[in-house]
C-alpha cells in the first residue's frame, strides 16, 4: 500500500517549494539569467553597432546608390523611360534634357551630375556643363539646338549612358571595381586594356599578403620553437624581444625601415663599407614592393609567433625523445612527430597574418612606392583625391567580403575565443 503511494507521488509532476511546477520555475530562472547576460552585452553591442557597423553598412549602400541623375534630371529620366535604346531618342527627350539642364544649373547641381556621368563616359563633364550654360536661351526644336551646341548630343552612347544612370541603383561601381563596364548595348564587357587596373591590384594585394604570411611563418616558426623549448627564465626575456615590436607604434617601425632601407640608409651604408656592393651599386630596397614586404613582415611577425608559441608550449618534449629513442633520426622525428602537432598554430598564425595584411594601408602608403601599393591605398585615393566615393565603396565592399570570409574561416578553425594578445 505505502509503496503504491510513493510510486504515485513520483509519477506526478515535480513541484517547487511554492507549489508551482519546478520545470517552469527552472525555465523562468534560466530565462532571467539569459536576459541579464544579454543585458550586460547590450551597451557595447549598441555602441559598436552605431559607431562602427552602421557606418560601414551605409558605406556599402553608397556603392550601389545612384541618386544623382535620378534626382536632378527628373524630366529626362521620365522621357527616357520608354526609349528602346536604339538610334537616338525623340524630340521630347531633348526638350526634357534642356529643361533639366536649366533647372540643374539653377540649383547648382549640374556639377555633380556632370561628374557622375563623366565617371561612366569620359569627356561628358565639359559637354554637360558647357551645354547647361547655353540651355537657357535654347529654342525648339531642341534636338537641333543641343546637337548644334555639341556633336556628342547626337551620339547614341551618351543617351544610353544617361538612361543607364537614371536608375536609382546601379551595379556599375562593382563592375568598375573588377575592371568591367557596360557597353553601348548594356552588356557587361571587360574594360579597355589600358584602363584595366583593379584586378591587377587585387591580385597584387593577395600576392603581397601571401608573401608576408609565408615570410612570417618562415621567420616565426624557429623563434616560436626556441621560445617554447628554452627554460622559462630565458624564454621570458626573449619573449620581450618579440613583444616590444608589437607594442611599438606602427609609424615608428615604418620610419625605422625607411631609415634602414633607403639608398643612403644604414643597410646600404653597411654593405658599401664592408665592400659587398660598390658606392654606385646601392640597392633600391624601399619605395617598392620589396620595402612593403619587408616592413609588413616585421610588423606582423609577432602575430605569427604568439599563436605558434602557445601551441608549441602544449607539446610535451617527451614525444620527440620517444621518437628518437624508437630509432627515428632527428629530421624524421621532427617532420613526422613534432611538425604535425604544430599545424593548428601554423593555421591560426598564417590566417591571422593574412587577414591583417590584406587590408594594410599605412605601410604600403609610406614605403610602397608605386609597385608596393595595395587595394587599401586605392580606396583611400578614391576617397580623398578622385572623390569617386561610389567606386571607393565598391572596392571596399569587395575587400570587406574577402576579409569577412577569412574571418569566418578563422573563427571556425581557430575560434575567436582563442585569440591571444601577448
Amino acid at each position, binding site marked *: 500500500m505505502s509503496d503504491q503511494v510513493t510510486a504515485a507521488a513520483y509519477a506526478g509532476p515535480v513541484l517547487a517549494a511554492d507549489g508551482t511546477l519546478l520545470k517552469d520555475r527552472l525555465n523562468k530562472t534560466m530565462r532571467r*539569467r539569459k536576459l541579464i*547576460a*544579454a543585458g*550586460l*552585452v547590450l551597451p*557595447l*553591442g549598441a*555602441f*559598436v553597432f552605431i*559607431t*562602427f*557597423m552602421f*557606418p*560601414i553598412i551605409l*558605406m556599402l549602400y*553608397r556603392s550601389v546608390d545612384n541618386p544623382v541623375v535620378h534626382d536632378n534630371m527628373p524630366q529626362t529620366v521620365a522621357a527616357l523611360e520608354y526609349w528602346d535604346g536604339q538610334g537616338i531618342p525623340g524630340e521630347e527627350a531633348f526638350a526634357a534634357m534642356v529643361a533639366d539642364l536649366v533647372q540643374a544649373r539653377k540649383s547648382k547641381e549640374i556639377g555633380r551630375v556632370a561628374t557622375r556621368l563623366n565617371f561612366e563616359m569620359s569627356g561628358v563633364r565639359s559637354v554637360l556643363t558647357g551645354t547647361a550654360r547655353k540651355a537657357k536661351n535654347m529654342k525648339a526644336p531642341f534636338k537641333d539646338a543641343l546637337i548644334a551646341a555639341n556633336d556628342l548630343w547626337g551620339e547614341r552612347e551618351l543617351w544610353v549612358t544617361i538612361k543607364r544612370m537614371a536608375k536609382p541603383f546601379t551595379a556599375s561601381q562593382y563592375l568598375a571595381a573588377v575592371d568591367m563596364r557596360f557597353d553601348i548595348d548594356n552588356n557587361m564587357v571587360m574594360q579597355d586594356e589600358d584602363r584595366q587596373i583593379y584586378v591587377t591590384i587585387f591580385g597584387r594585394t593577395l600576392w603581397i599578403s601571401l608573401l608576408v604570411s609565408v615570410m612570417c611563418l618562415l621567420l616565426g616558426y*624557429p*623563434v616560436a620553437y*626556441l621560445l617554447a*623549448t628554452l627554460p622559462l627564465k630565458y624564454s621570458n626575456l626573449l619573449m*620581450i*624581444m*618579440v613583444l616590444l*615590436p608589437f*607594442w*611599438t*607604434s*606602427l*609609424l*615608428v*617601425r*615604418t*620610419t*625605422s625601415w625607411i*631609415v634602414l632601407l633607403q639608398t643612403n640608409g*644604414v643597410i646600404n651604408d653597411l654593405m658599401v663599407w664592408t665592400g659587398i656592393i660598390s658606392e654606385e651599386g646601392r640597392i633600391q630596397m624601399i619605395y617598392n614592393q620589396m620595402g612593403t614586404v619587408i616592413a609588413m613582415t*616585421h610588423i606582423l*611577425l609577432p602575430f605569427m609567433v604568439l599563436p605558434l608559441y602557445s601551441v608549441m608550449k602544449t607539446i610535451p618534449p617527451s614525444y620527440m625523445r620517444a621518437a628518437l629513442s624508437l630509432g627515428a633520426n632527428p629530421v624524421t622525428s621532427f617532420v613526422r612527430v613534432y611538425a604535425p602537432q604544430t599545424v593548428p598554430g601554423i593555421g591560426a598564425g598564417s590566417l591571422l597574418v593574412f*587577414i591583417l595584411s*590584406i*587590408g*594594410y*594601408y*599605412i605601410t604600403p602608403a*609610406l614605403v610602397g612606392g608605386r609597385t608596393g601599393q595595395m587595394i*587599401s591605398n586605392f*580606396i*583611400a585615393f578614391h576617397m580623398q583625391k578622385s572623390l569617386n566615393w561610389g567606386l571607393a565603396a565598391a572596392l*571596399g565592399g569587395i*575587400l*570587406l567580403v574577402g*576579409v569577412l570570409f577569412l*574571418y569566418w574561416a578563422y*573563427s571556425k578553425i581557430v*575560434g*575567436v*575565443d582563442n585569440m*591571444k*594578445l*601577448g
Partner: protein
Amino acid sequence: MLPIYAGPLETTWYYTFRVICGLILLFLIAPILVVIPLSFNAEPYFSFTPGMLSFDADAFSMRWYEDIINNKQWIHSAKNSVIIAFFATIIATTLGTVAALGLSRPEMPYRGAIMGLLISPMIVPLIISAAGMYFFYSEVGLTQTYAGIILAHAALGTPFVVITVTATLTGFDQSLIRAANNLGANDTYTFFKVTMPLIMPGMISGGLFAFITSFDEVVAVLFLSGFEQRTIPRQMWAGIREQISPTILAVATILVIISVMLLATIELLRRRSDRLRGLV
C-alpha cells in the same frame, strides 16, 4: 639542452639554429633600436655619420629634441593624442568589461556569434572602418571634432578589452559570487569587492591595449580629424610623407620608450594575474 649523445652533425645544427634564431630576433628588434642613436645625430641625416661611429661627442646633439619642445604643433599633437586616447580608453574599458562579464556567463545565448561581431573592429581593414565612419560622422556633424575621433577610437579599442577581460574570466570561479551573495552582499557590492579585484589585471591590460590602439591610430584620424585635432601619429605621417627630418626620429625614440614602459606594465600585470588565478 644539447643531449650528451649528440653527434657532430647535431651539435653543428644546434648552434646553427641558435644563430638563425638570433638573426631573426635581431630582425625584430634592431629596427626599433636603430632610431634611438640616430635621433641624437648632430647632422640632419638619417644615417650614422663618421663622427658618430668614432663616438665623437660633437657628432651627437639634443637639437631634434629641442625642436620638438619648441614646436607648438608637436606639443599640441601630444596633448591631443593623450586626451583622445584617455577618453577612448575609458569608454572602451567600461563597455568592454561589462560586455565581457555578460559573455563569460554560461547562460549567454549565441555567444560565439556575438563575440565574433564585437571583435570585428579589430579585423575589418582600418581603411574600410575609417571610410564608413567618415561618411556617417560627417552626416551627423562629428567630423573635425574631438568627440568623433574619441568615439571612433573607442570602437576600435573595445575588441582588445573584450578579449583580455574574457581571458581573465575563464577559470573565474562563479561560486565566489554565490558565496558573496550567500553572505549577504548585494550584486553591486559583490562586483566591486569580489569580481573586480580579480579581473582588474585583465581590465588594466585591456585598457592599455585600447590606449595604445588609439595612441597609435592614424587612418581614422586622417579621415575624421581637422587640423585642430591632429595627433602625434598624424603629425608623423605628414612628416614622413612631406619632408622627413630627424625630429621624427626623436619623436620615434620617445614613443619607443613609452612602449617599453607599457610592455613592462603589461608583463607585471600578467604575472600578477596568473598568480591570483593560481596558474603559476
